């Protein structure tokens, strides 16, 4: 602290400030949060055990059985919840002035959002992994190994939709209340999205459900297992991703007008 300050010698960090220390701290931070642990590890696995071990779960569906179908669905539900929670954190951090603090560092805003998305994806992957491991241990789900892997990867991709939803809802409902809306909200969407209970194709409920955000991604995630991918499911998934990303971007741009 005795040397003279020379403004000409300063450097800009590489990668817009992205580094492993930050990723490590962000990750430990998420894993320390009891609510995240419950949503990510406990709840989806417990639901799978509750629903996926009843009668008729060894009936064949596509390339596997009903237990496998339920397992993929529960993994999606867990990953969606986790990613949404991660997304909502972005808004919470803005409300606390942390984003403003970060704007006074070399960290590029796009790097910050990408980093949050990465953390959401990593935790989503953990949620998917937990349900799959429980499925393996329980030994009721059956499908070819490559189908198993394809379903898991597709589920992870679909998780992005809910990371965007989390950011969007986080802005609409600031503070820590976002998860109190996202939790029950995602449960309802999962019910409508054919994730918890199969809806009768052609029923009025099904006609409504086909338009809801969980429906498309659920069909996409299970496509390797069921062997079918209806065009409207893909349209649904892409459209909702666009809606949530646009909503999040819109709220975020409103917010940065006066940081």
């Amino acid at each position: 602290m005795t040397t003279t300050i020379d403004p000409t010698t300063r450097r800009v960090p590489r990668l817009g400030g992205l580094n492993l220390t930050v990723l490590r701290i962000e990750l430990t931070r998420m894993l320390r949060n009891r609510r995240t642990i419950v949503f990510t590890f406990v709840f989806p696995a417990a639901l799978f055990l509750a629903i996926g071990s009843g009668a008729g779960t060894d009936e064949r569906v596509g390339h596997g059985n009903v237990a496998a179908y339920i397992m993929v669905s529960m993994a999606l539900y867990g990953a969606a919840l986790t990613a949404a929670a991660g997304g909502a954190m972005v808004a919470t951090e803005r409300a606390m002035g942390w984003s403003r603090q970060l704007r006074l560092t070399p960290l590029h805003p796009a790097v910050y959002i990408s980093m949050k998305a990465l953390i959401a994806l990593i935790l989503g992957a953990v949620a998917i992994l937990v349900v799959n491991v429980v499925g393996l241990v329980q030994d009721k789900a059956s499908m070819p190994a490559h189908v198993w892997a394809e379903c898991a990867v597709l589920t992870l991709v679909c998780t992005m939709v809910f990371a965007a939803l989390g950011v969007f809802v986080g802005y609409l409902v600031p503070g820590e209340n976002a998860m109190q809306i996202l939790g029950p909200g995602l449960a309802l969407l999962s019910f409508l999205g054919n994730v918890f209970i199969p809806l009768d194709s052609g029923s009025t409920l099904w006609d409504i459900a086909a338009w809801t955000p969980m429906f498309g991604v659920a069909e996409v995630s299970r496509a390797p297992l069921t062997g079918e991918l209806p065009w409207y499911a893909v349209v649904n998934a892409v459209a909702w991703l666009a809606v949530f990303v646009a909503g999040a971007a819109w709220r975020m741009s409103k917010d940065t007008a006066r940081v």
Partner: protein
Amino acid sequence: MPPRCGSIVGMDLASLPDDRTTLGRPSGPSAAAIRLRDVTKDFGPVHAVRGIDLTVEPGEIVAFLGPNGAGKTTTLDIVLGLSQATTGTADVFGLQPRQAIARGLVAAVMQTGGLLKDLSVRETVAYMASLFADTRPVDDVLAHAGISGLANRKVGKCSGGEQQRLRFAMALLSDPALLLLDEPTTGMDVEGRRAFWAAIRADAERGRTVLFATHYLEEADQYADRIVLMRKGRIVADGSGSQIRALAAGRTVRATLERADHGALSRIDGVESVEVRGDTVLVHAKDTDPVARYLLTQTSAHDLEITARGIEQAFLALTGDHGDDTTATLEGGTR
């Protein structure tokens, strides 16, 4: 013509070296720490900043004074690159504000917020440190800020004073060449305040520039090399503490007097203004003794009152909402 306190602003700007030639060059030793040129900022129909020219040289300690809504925060946001000027340019060490931030040249300490409650003190500092290309070691920074003992405590469990020390530790991580402070000593006791300013002064001697917003006029007078007063989006005075106080020099004589002779009073040496309101006469003068002598010996004036203006009144006079012309408000300061 913007309302300015002509003498002070004029003198100050004229005394600054004209280093226009350094503009456009990447930062060099001769680049000003802050250079604002004709900066305006509108929020829809609201004109928050109405044309500011301000140059701060490296190593200066500048106090930023003004009532709420004067445009101080907006101006600081522009210097920090958090907000874009509607018109005009802002340079920090000859760079765009964002470029200066990316090099760790600028740091700011805000009064509230900016912390995550679920991180520990060490995690917070390590997080921030990892974002800069060059930083001081985390443990050194913690020790320097006197929070080594709290390293593993969650930020949410720290007291307000401890959180403020943490904010300082974070701001000093990159050894910034420009430090912006918002009400830095709020909540500090006298001893803490003295120690704080001693540290700031020591850093300024190494070349660190400090710009702080404060409501404590005495603090501005005591610790700043220079005071910049803002009102309604404009700089209304810019000078040293003694120059600002000089604005308030002189006294006002108030007396009850029927049919006061306006001309005779105006002709007394040192009289700056004379105002007659019914039976009351107000005379503002550098030296009020001759005025008082005249009133008491040559007229039937009675109930004489002589009042001096402190820096508080100078501040109120310069920043108060008395009208559009600052010179007029100066004269009205003791009303």
